[in-house]
């Protein structure tokens, strides 16, 4: 597939730390790509390098095949949706969205603004100031302001983190829907693995300035290449250096057949989570493990002797 954006061994070193360390990444045109990692992992710095707010210490950034790492932000056809939206408080919604079109001397500003307002469902709010609309609406203005410029890549810096949790899931679905409709490449930075898994065509997991793994959500979740990736994307039971996710870990009173990995264990506690139950157990050698089971399977009392088991195919293995 054709790459719209290529990062070639880019690094950003500060006097005190190395924020980004040799990241190489190709992003395909029209792709929804997420950069996932904990705070301080270098994902936002990577985004800022692509936007042009920072210059890489070394390496090359190519947009449509041309090196752009020395260009100013206003010379690059990428656009950013900021975490705090950075809407211009002195301008109306309409003027905020027109801002980029006017700076670039574009034509048909009125029609293009109307179209994007319709796309993000903000019709009727044109004359409002950013302080006069809701958080969700501000987020959509920020999105519209960038989308209207039809950038080669839209950079989104944790755009959902400022929203309250109920709204976040709804906006997440809208975001994916909008991306499909406009076909613009989205590079989405987040620390929320659920967001990254549910939204992305592919995602990259960053840790301490290094891109640890790139792949589809299934690949990264089911076949993590490092222990960090395995742990960051979801809970893992580490038993004798083998990783097993709680949802494939089973608990039974009777011993299972010989084709599975099985350990005798004692139930410590069970936690009701609504859609499932977490059974916390201690193996006979002292290691702790959690099994996520359905409510129907969850009739265990603390202190009960059980067998903890899983299919060998479900084990996470690392090089």
């Amino acid at each position, binding site marked *: 597939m054709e790459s719209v954006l290529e990062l070639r061994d880019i690094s950003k070193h500060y006097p005190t730390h190395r924020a980004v360390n040799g990241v190489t990444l190709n992003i395909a045109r029209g792709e929804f790509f997420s950069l996932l990692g904990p705070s301080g992992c270098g994902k936002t710095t990577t985004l800022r390098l692509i936007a042009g*707010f920072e210059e890489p210490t070394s390496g090359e950034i190519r947009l449509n095949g041309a090196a752009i790492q020395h260009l100013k*932000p*206003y010379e690059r056809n990428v656009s*950013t949706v*900021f975490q705090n939206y*950075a809407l211009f*408080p*002195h301008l109306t919604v309409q003027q905020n969205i027109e801002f980029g079109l006017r*700076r*670039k001397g574009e034509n048909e500003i009125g029609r293009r603004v109307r179209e994007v307002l319709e796309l993000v469902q903000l019709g009727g709010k044109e004359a409002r100031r950013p302080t006069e609309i809701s958080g969700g609406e501000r987020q959509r203005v920020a999105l519209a302001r960038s989308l209207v410029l039809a950038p080669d890549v839209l950079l989104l810096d944790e755009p959902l983190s400022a929203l309250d949790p109920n709204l976040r899931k709804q906006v997440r679905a809208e975001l994916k829907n909008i991306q499909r409709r406009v076909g613009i490449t989205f590079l989405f930075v987040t620390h929320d693995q659920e967001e990254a898994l549910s939204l992305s065509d592919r995602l990259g997991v960053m840790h301490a300035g290094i891109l640890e793994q790139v792949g589809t959500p299934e690949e990264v979740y089911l076949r993590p290449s490092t222990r960090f990736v395995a742990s960051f994307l979801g809970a893992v039971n580490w038993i004798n250096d083998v990783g097993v996710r709680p949802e494939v870990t089973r608990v039974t009173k009777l011993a299972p057949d010989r084709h599975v990995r099985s350990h005798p264990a004692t139930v410590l506690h069970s936690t009701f989570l609504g859609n499932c139950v977490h059974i916390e157990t201690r193996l006979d050698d002292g290691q702790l493990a959690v099994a996520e089971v359905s409510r129907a399977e969850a009739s265990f009392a603390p202190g009960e002797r059980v067998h903890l088991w899983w299919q060998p195919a479900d084990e996470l293995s690392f090089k």
Partner: protein
Amino acid sequence: MKRLRAWFLAPSWTVMLSLFLFPMLIILAYSLLTRGTYGGISLPWSVESYQRFADPIYLGILWRSFWIAGASTVISLLLGFPLALFISRAGKWKNLYLSLVILPFWTSFLVRTYAWMFLLRDTGLVNSTLQKMGIIHDPLPLLYNDGAVILGLVYGYLPFMVLPLFGTLEKLDRNLLEAAADLGARPWATLLRVVLPLSAPGIRAGVILVFIPCLGAYLTPDLLGGGKSVMIGNLIQNQFTTARDWPFGSAISLALMAIVMPLLIAFVRRDEEGLL
């Protein structure tokens, strides 16, 4: 709670009433009385002082004061804005630069104005240096004109422009500048479309803090204007000293306030719109 608030506000109310409102009422009364033979005031009551102020000579002085104060304010803004912007970006040097801006306040304004006279007069440092370098033959007329007065006012009141501007520029969300660049605005467009409109409150405060004292200045025009460049402040001062016409001096003071106050209120009102 209400009682506590009253107690805390009492000192400032006392000061405001006894040192501002009460003297203002005295001035109002003076302005409506007649000039005494050896200065001071006497009866009868009269509005003659106000009528005299309508004389073209005095209105001319009023007009001159407005344009000198206006020019000084505009020049202060043009000099102060880049300076405030620079200081707001100076990182760890910020406090040092700010204290340099405030440093002149450590010496008397009078002394500093005299220093300008020594620099600008015919045998002063500027003229003698230029003459020694052979750039000019006869000394340039640097002192005792409107230019010298404006220079002195800009010099004296520039910090009052820089400080409020710095206050707003420092609080400016850096993300907004990045957003502007990101949306295709070159630095100049970002300055005009984002930085300038968002620093309107600082500009407004700076303009008021510079324009008002410049309008009423009497020391600077007296020393640097050499009596030729009379401003309204000098006129008022004269009425209370050499001219011994207290009612007229009082009338000019109040007339000036009556003219400036509505302008000031209109200017501050625009704040609510958040735009220049």
